[in-house]
Every structure is written in structure tokens, then in C-alpha cells.
């Protein structure tokens, strides 16, 4: 790990030079000004950076990064701070480069169905700009009303539609970026085809360790003409899981397949007055989409499959309002569960879909044994779990016990042949589990690649790779935006 100038005086001089790089007022150094940047959506961690740089142009970002390189000053790029893995957690010996002001959509070409955006553009703003042309940007992390494309690119954000449409990396055609070396590179471009090694593909999901994306070319897709969204309640989780297996085996390709477990249902009822069939341990949501003729034919098959799956009740959404109500209940589930507990950890491990039932039985068993409550909501179509582990940070040792359970769940995911993260990334949160998934040689390989992009280890150090340098641990409750219901943890 490269240290910034060690003496206080030396650092003061470095920060003065940094302040001279940008117009007055755009290098923040006061504790009050920087408070909002001390943590992201992984609220158990926080750290106060030396300063926060607020560039407004690509050239300013490049200048700040090159300054950091010359001074060996670590930097953390930040969008809206919604990372669930602590991806934008600051460093006490480094600066934050906040990118929210680089928020222009530079180009929107409806004929070629692409958009070129700056990193601070909010995910949903891309779809809003594309909507008049009947297009949308497919990746839909549930923080999409606030999270930025730059952050989505860094962490390869997912969402509820990944089985059919893939993750962020499947929708990024090109990236212009400034690397940890200060080099400005352009990978890919407006074509949906790549020639030669897929540098764009390598860049997406780098967790900020390669550098900062300055311009991102996104592919847009036509919005589906028609949706058919069904909610089905089951007495047991196994029955809901069997229904997923039956849907998948039928040859249908739903846009989304989600399951909510009892505790999450109760929370959604309390929080957004969602209504679910009574007496259900689990609720399944399946959504078909496409041209109306295709959906009409597919829904006949889906109805047959669900009818045969021993549901308590099947409720198809009859109109757009009912569809939105189903999704509102689903998307609010995490912040809603948060109301049941002062603190919680959420993870996003993945298991092979056929082992979902087994995985959930184990989680529930461990939850009972340890007395730690655990709510489950998950993207059932792609085996992506989201166990929500409830704890009270004021209780001594509670966080550590919750983390121990979380660790057990992650190791189970790896043992079952899955992954420690489906969509949140490794960040700070899961860096100690990287070695459960990859061998020492494999981690060393990734570290060499990282060093190619950032030989000084100044771009988001302390993330992804197991590290001795642990950031300060504190105990918080919900992220303020979560409390406001703007974002949720899934």
C-alpha cells in the first residue's frame, strides 16, 4: 500500500496544491462538508477522507487523478454512494473524487439505440431520456432512481432482470477512462460488435481499481410492449422453489422470477401496505414480457404451470397499477425489513438454482440456532440470494455474530458451486472471502492485472483484495436514503 506524504505539514501542502487544481469551493475539507462522504450504503463502515474533490468536467477528473499519481495520493471515485459492498468507502489517507456533477448525457441516438453518458448520470435518467423513443436501459438495480452509471460500471450492477438481459457489463459497449497511471484510454465504441480482446468487458466490474470511467457508451433496448406479472402464494418455501423449477423447465424465459419469504412479506405489509394471500410462507413473482401476442400465448402456459404447483392463491396483475403494486412490495422489502431491526447486513451470494431450497433451509437452520433473525428475498431465476441478517449494533458482539453468520452463508454459496457476489461486488465487505472462491494463483493474477492499470495502488485501494488495512468499524442504522425509501438493499 502506498502511503501519502506522512507528515502533517507535507500533507497540508499537498492539499493546498490540490485545492489550486479546481476552482474555489470544489475541494471540500471541512468535517461538516465531508460528512456525507464518509460512508456509503454499507453503513457498518465509515472513514473520513483528507478531502473531497468535486470536478465538473472530464479534464478536471483527469487533472485530479494525475495529481494523485504524482503525489501517490490514494483516491476513491464516488457516484451516489449506494454501494452495498463498501465500494466507495473513503480512505483516511486519501481523497474522494465525487462525480455527480459529470452528469450529462452526451449523445442519445435512437436509430442506433445507444447513449453516451458521463459517469455521474443516474441510471434511471438514461431510461427517462430514452423513453420518448420507445427505448430503455435494461439494467435495473433497485437503487436505480439514484445510483449512477459510473458506479454501475465499476461494480457491474445487476437487478431483477439479469437472467434474460444480463448485468451492466452486457450493456456497456465502450468506455473512456482515466487509469491509475494517468493514461486516458478508450475501449470499445458505438458498435455492438467488438474486435480483438474485449477491453471494455475487462474494465466493467473493476470496482474502481483500474481508474475512473469518464464516458460510457450504453446500448439501449426497445421497451417490451406488454407485461404479464403474476404473484403466487405458497404454504411452504419448498413449494415456491418447486414452482420456479417448473417454470424454468417449461421453456418459458420470464423477464423476472422473484421470491419473498415470510418475514419480508410481513415487513412489506407493514411498510407499504402490500397485500399477500394469507397463510403463506413464501410468495413467488413471475413476469413475462414481450409483444402482446407472445405474452398472450406464454401466459396460458404459465397459468397452467402455476395452477399445478399447489399455490394458496395466484393473483395476476390485471393492469399497470396492480403490476406496480406487486413490484413496489418487492422493491420495498429490504428497507421495510430494516424497520424491524436497528441494523442489518445484506448479502448477495449466488447458488445454483436447483439448490435454492437447500440453501434457504440451511440459512433458516443457522438463523434458529444462533437466534439471529434472517429475512430472505431473492432473484430466484438466477439463484441470487439476498439474506438480510438483522442485528442490534448497540448490543455488544451483535455485529460480529451477524458477520459470522453472513460468512457462513457466503462459504455455503461457494461450496454449492455458486459465487460470493451476484451483483454488489466484493468491495470492502467480502474481500476476506475472495480466497474462498479463487486460488492464490488466481488472486495473484488479478493483482497483476490491477497493477497494469494502477501500479501505484492509488485507485480505490483496500477493496476487492484481502487486506490487512481494515477501515474503521462503526455501527449505524439505515442509510438516510433508505430510511426515506429512495433506495433499498437488493
Amino acid at each position: 500500500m502506498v502511503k501519502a506524504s506522512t507528515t502533517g505539514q507535507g500533507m497540508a501542502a499537498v492539499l493546498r496544491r490540490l485545492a489550486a487544481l479546481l476552482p474555489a469551493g470544489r475541494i471540500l475539507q471541512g468535517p461538516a462538508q465531508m460528512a456525507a462522504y464518509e460512508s456509503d450504503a454499507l453503513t457498518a463502515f465509515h472513514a473520513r477522507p483528507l478531502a473531497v474533490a468535486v470536478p465538473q468536467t472530464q479534464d478536471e477528473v483527469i487533472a485530479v487523478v494525475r495529481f494523485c499519481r504524482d503525489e501517490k495520493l490514494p483516491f476513491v471515485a464516488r457516484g451516489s454512494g449506494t454501494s452495498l459492498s463498501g465500494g466507495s468507502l473513503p480512505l483516511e489517507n486519501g481523497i474522494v473524487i465525487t462525480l455527480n456533477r459529470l452528469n450529462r448525457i452526451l449523445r442519445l441516438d435512437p436509430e442506433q439505440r445507444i447513449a453516451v453518458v458521463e459517469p455521474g448520470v443516474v441510471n434511471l435518467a438514461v431510461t427517462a431520456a430514452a423513453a420518448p423513443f420507445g427505448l430503455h436501459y435494461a439494467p435495473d438495480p433497485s437503487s436505480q432512481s439514484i445510483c449512477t452509471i459510473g458506479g454501475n460500471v465499476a461494480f457491474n450492477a445487476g437487478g431483477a432482470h439479469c437472467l434474460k438481459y444480463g448485468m451492466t457489463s452486457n450493456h456497456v459497449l465502450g468506455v473512456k477512462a482515466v487509469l491509475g497511471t494517468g493514461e486516458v484510454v478508450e475501449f470499445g465504441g458505438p458498435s455492438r460488435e467488438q474486435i480483438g480482446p474485449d477491453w471494455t468487458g475487462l474494465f466493467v466490474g473493476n470496482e474502481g481499481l483500474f481508474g475512473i470511467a469518464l464516458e460510457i457508451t450504453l446500448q439501449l433496448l426497445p421497451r417490451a410492449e406488454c407485461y404479464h406479472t403474476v404473484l403466487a402464494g405458497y404454504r411452504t418455501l419448498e413449494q415456491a422453489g418447486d414452482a420456479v423449477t417448473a417454470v424454468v423447465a417449461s421453456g418459458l424465459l420470464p423477464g423476472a422470477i422473484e421470491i419473498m419469504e415470510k418475514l419480508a412479506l410481513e415487513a412489506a405489509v407493514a411498510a407499504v401496505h402490500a397485500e399477500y394471500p394469507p397463510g403463506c410462507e413464501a410468495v413467488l413473482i413471475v413476469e413475462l414480457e414481450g409483444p402482446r401476442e407472445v405474452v398472450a400465448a406464454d401466459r396460458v402456459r404459465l397459468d397452467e404451470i402455476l395452477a399445478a404447483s399447489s399455490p394458496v392463491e395466484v393473483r395476476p396483475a390485471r393492469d399497470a397499477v396492480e403490476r406496480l403494486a406487486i413490484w413496489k412490495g418487492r422493491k420495498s422489502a429490504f428497507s421495510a425489513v430494516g424497520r424491524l431491526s436497528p441494523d442489518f447486513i445484506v448479502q448477495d451470494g449466488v447458488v445454483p438454482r436447483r439448490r435454492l431450497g437447500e440453501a434457504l433451509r440451511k440459512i433458516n437452520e443457522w438463523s434458529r440456532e444462533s437466534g439471529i433473525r434472517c429475512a430472505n428475498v431473492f432473484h430466484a431465476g438466477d439463484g441470487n440470494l439476498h439474506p438480510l441478517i438483522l442485528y442490534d449494533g448497540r448490543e455488544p458482539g451483535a455485529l460480529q455474530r451477524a458477520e459470522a453468520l453472513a460468512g457462513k452463508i457466503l462459504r455455503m454459496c461457494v461450496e454449492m458451486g455458486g459465487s460470493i457476489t451476484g451483483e454488489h461486488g466484493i468491495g470492502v465487505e467480502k474481500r476476506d472471502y475472495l480466497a474462498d472462491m479463487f486460488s492464490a494463483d488466481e488472486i495473484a493474477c488479478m493483482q497483476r492485472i490491477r497493477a497494469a492499470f494502477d501500479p501505484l495502488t492509488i485507485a480505490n485501494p483496500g477493496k476487492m483484495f484481502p487486506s490487512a488495512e481494515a477501515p474503521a468499524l462503526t455501527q449505524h442504522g439505515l442509510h438516510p436514503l433508505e430510511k426515506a425509501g429512495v433506495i433499498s438493499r437488493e
Partner: protein
Amino acid sequence: MSIALEPTTTAELVDAVRSAPRVIAIGGGTKPRLSRVGDGFTRISTAKLNGIVEYEPSEFTFTAQAGTPLRDIVKALAERGQYLPFDPMLVRAGSTLGGAVAGGLSGSGRFRFGGLRDFILGIRFVDGEGRLLRLGGKVVKNAAGFDLPKFFIGSAGRFGVLAELSFKVFPRPAASRTLRLEAADFGAKVKLFAALANSRWEIDALDAPLEEPAVYARIGGPATALDALAAEILGRMRGMVLTSGEADFFWLTVSELRWAHSTGVLAKFALVPTAVEAFAARVRACTGARGWISAGGNVGYVSTPAGTPLPDFGTVGVTLRGDAPLWLGPRTRFEVMNKVKAALDPQNRFPDLDERE
């Protein structure tokens, strides 16, 4: 040309990579230009690294050894009603899974759901130091670690030798219909591309031969729905629905590159729809050259007859066979690219990124 090493296990593959100062992997040999390197290279054939390792239809995933012929994979998937939606290319010609990835050759179906890069999940490969590494995963959703699997798409064996690959698959639609729509020239074709691509119809594939005044579009789904969609399309655009025999023949012509000259240069280019007209004009200006536009104007192919040099298209491309530079068009060699090459292959055991052998 020297006889290739033929490892039968990953351990033997590791030994093979370590056995010589310079090595190049070869698969089915269907894109021979990718592995045509200078003297002094030991060739490693993946022919005996052959077989599907795992196939879980309920997971929509499979893992196969790099030398597995695409033919075997396509067949195994079809038996369970599944497929690789990008229409893998050169399947009948004998292309292997590893070769498809190293060559970066997706097919017409990449238009709807994306190409190789959108379905690859994980790889095992041997790096330039002879280490066997697995990156990515085997499940349909995974965000752990750097995305080396994607990076290997189109990498032409410059960073490592692939041993095993994991892919996502989809259920195959119950039926499909192919429409031949009339378009007098490339201006009209590009307009049709945009109209079809931005429609409610969800077109799976969108191709246009250079020599024919037509655009071909394929839709997939339940048969009754497709007939209604096809009728609507033909109510707005002049054309016809192909019989299933005609449709199969047409898509085989594309995926097996049968429209191309059997000798001479065959190259692929990355395009954007607005560049298609100029691209087509350049192909036409070259005597005897043939061309094909795929993926709604995002991919262009050119085939020149033996002895006719490939004209300059001013856009990035790759030569698949014949006598032309491997990498075509303007390319910027960023410093980081050399460093990543060195990170994976410090002794430069595999061919250089640029051809300066």
C-alpha cells in the same frame, strides 16, 4: 508446419504450454488466420481436450472443454430444448468452443440477446507462466473478480490457452419465422434495420446480403403469435415469409459463411448502421469481392477472391482467413494493453498483441 502437441488433460496442457518458449493454441482450424504466426511457435491443439464436463439444463448452464466441437454442444443443448441464442458460427465446419471464443465470432442471433460476451460465464486457462487459472464462475450471475472471461473473447490466444469454458444458455423458442423484406439499396436496408430494431416485434436476427436487394429478419416464440407478428410486419413492409426449409438454408448460409469465396481473404468488421452504406460501397468497388451485413448493421463481413488484396475499410476488423494483416483498420495501442499482456504473459510465450513476429 510442425505437428501440434495434443494434450489430453489440463495437466498435459500445462506441460505443453511450459514446453516451449513460444506457443499458439489451435482449435478446429476454421479461422486459420488467427493462429498463423511466425516460425518458432509450437502449436498446441485442443482437439483432445474434448467433451462437455457439466450440463445442467435446469440451471441454463454448461461447462465444456475448450476443444469440444460446437456441433456436439449445439446437439446436446437441442436435445433438452435449449440453445446458444447467438447462433454460433462455423458449427458444421468444425469450430470448437474455445476457437469461437478466441476468435470472437458470434452469429446472427447476437442481435437480440447479445453474443459470446453476453453468455460466457467462466473460463479455465493456462497463462504464459504455465499456471492453470479459473476466473469467472459457473452460475448465471456472478460479479466476483475481474471479468477475464469476457476479456478472452476475441483475444486470439494472445493471453493464454483456454482449457474449459462455462456458458449460460436459454430455452429455445417453440417456433421461428424468417421474413425476407425488400430493400432496393443500402440506404433502404439501413432504414429497415432501424424500423425493425425499434419495433415492438422483438426481432431475433437481422441480416442483409450485399448482393441481394433484401433484408432478412427472424422472430422466435410461440407459433400462433409469430404468424400474427409476421402478418403485421408484411402489412407494413414488402416481403414474404420463408418456408422453414428456405429459412434453415438461409441461416446456414450465414452461420457457415457459405456466401463467401472458399479461398481468398475473409474478414470481419465492427460497424454502426450509419456506416453500412459506405462499407457496402467499398466492397462493391473491389472487383469480385462479396459482403454480408449482420446484427442489424453492427457487423460486416468481406470476402475477396484469391489473389485480390483486401481494400482498406478505415474501420476496425479482424482477418479470419487468407493473406491479410490479422488486425485491420485504425487501432490505438494504449500503454496499459502492453502491461496487461505482460501481466498474463510476462515471457511473451504467446504471440504479440500486434503482429511483429
